[in-house]
């Protein structure tokens, strides 16, 4: 049986990207990634060869994040605008920085469930079946959350923290 830990490092960039978008703050996000990697190493024997390593890692991260959110003390306080400025800070060259900040701010106003689904699909490119496995919900739930998340982002893009819909070009 291949030891999955030998390939963990390949997935760190995507795990960091997802965690950053999910929890907002860089230090908290990397903490989450580190917890995830440590748990993956310690539970490597539980990984089923048939499943994708990426999906397994996102599942671990989801479970850790869900547990942390349950303990209120650890729940990150989302300040959408501040988070957005920190996140998008230096990354605006040809893209409109303000527009991206507004998109990130709107993301913070989704429910956690909507945010997870939207990010796993639109940012990480997981298939719907994979998202259902990661989150432990039926695929129908994934699809309805996805539509609601996208429509909510659309509303927020027109009226919410963003004054106009973000344009990336």
């Amino acid at each position, binding site marked *: 049986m291949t030891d999955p830990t030998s390939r963990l*490092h390949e997935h760190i960039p995507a795990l960091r*990207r997802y965690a950053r978008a999910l929890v907002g703050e860089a230090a908290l996000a990397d903490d989450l990634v580190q917890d995830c990697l440590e748990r993956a190493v310690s539970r490597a024997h539980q990984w089923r060869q048939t499943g994708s390593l990426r999906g397994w890692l996102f599942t671990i991260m989801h479970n850790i994040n869900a547990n942390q959110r349950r303990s209120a003390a650890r729940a990150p306080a989302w300040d959408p605008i501040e988070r957005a400025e920190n996140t998008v800070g230096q990354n605006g060259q040809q893209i409109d920085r303000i527009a991206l900040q507004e998109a990130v701010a709107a993301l913070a106003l989704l429910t956690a469930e909507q945010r997870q689904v939207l990010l796993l699909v639109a940012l990480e490119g997981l298939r719907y079946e994979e998202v259902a496995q990661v989150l432990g919900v039926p695929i129908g739930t994934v699809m309805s959350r996805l539509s609601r998340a996208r429509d909510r982002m659309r509303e927020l893009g027109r009226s919410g923290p963003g004054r106009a819909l973000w344009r990336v070009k």
Partner: protein
Amino acid sequence: MTNTPPGGGAPPTSPPIDDDMLNAYVDGRLDAPSRARVAQWLEANPEEAARIADWQETGEALRAAFDPVAAEPVPAALAMAAAGSPRPHRSWLRQAAAAVALLALGGGAGFGAAELLRTAPPQEHVALDAVHLAGNAAVAHRVFAVEVRHPVEVGAEQQAHLVQWLSRRLGTKLVAPRLEAQGYRLVGGRLLSAGEGPAAQLMYENREGKRITAFVANGVADGQTAFQFRQQGDVATFYWVDNGTGYALSGELSREALLEISRIVYSQLQP
């Protein structure tokens, strides 16, 4: 097909165009005929088309905002966690992110992932001994030798600065061995940790891109040892301790090839 409401008006053999289908359209999950059918339907339904355009722009904005995170160099603490090095203290990550020092090898850990799975977690605050030094060296080799974009912190083009910096942090005069005759040129180095103190890693590369790393740390408990050998997976390590300074040379080389280079490194380090 004009102004058809969602789900209506489609040929009986085709599934209705509903939100599931529109999501799949946005996410590129439809086959060509279905994609064409949705595109045609959107042309006839401008309100839905505007909605779908916004959905697409949301995705583009999120990717533009967060893709740069995936392009950042991987923090050393995370690379070490993936390689199976546990952290003894929770507060490390923030320090590690801020500081240059890599703290993930503290606590006397430093075995490969496979070993960690078989053994109990190491105790905290174990003094650095030669075996742990070799373990740390092998893990650090495995983590950074594969790194394409950021294999070192300071490149060989700044060799004087590199050696001076690492010497100051180690509190011992570091010498970068010359291995050109063996076909290896210095790539550069980085500051890491071993036990509870600093350690230096120097990386060398040959023309085929094969890399070997030298790992140096001070304050090794067994003050003096002979050459010793350790194999962790693909990574071979020769290590020795001289006056409390530990040296380890790691690479995915045969024992014989690595021994030859280790002897040369050893001879160059003698005054």
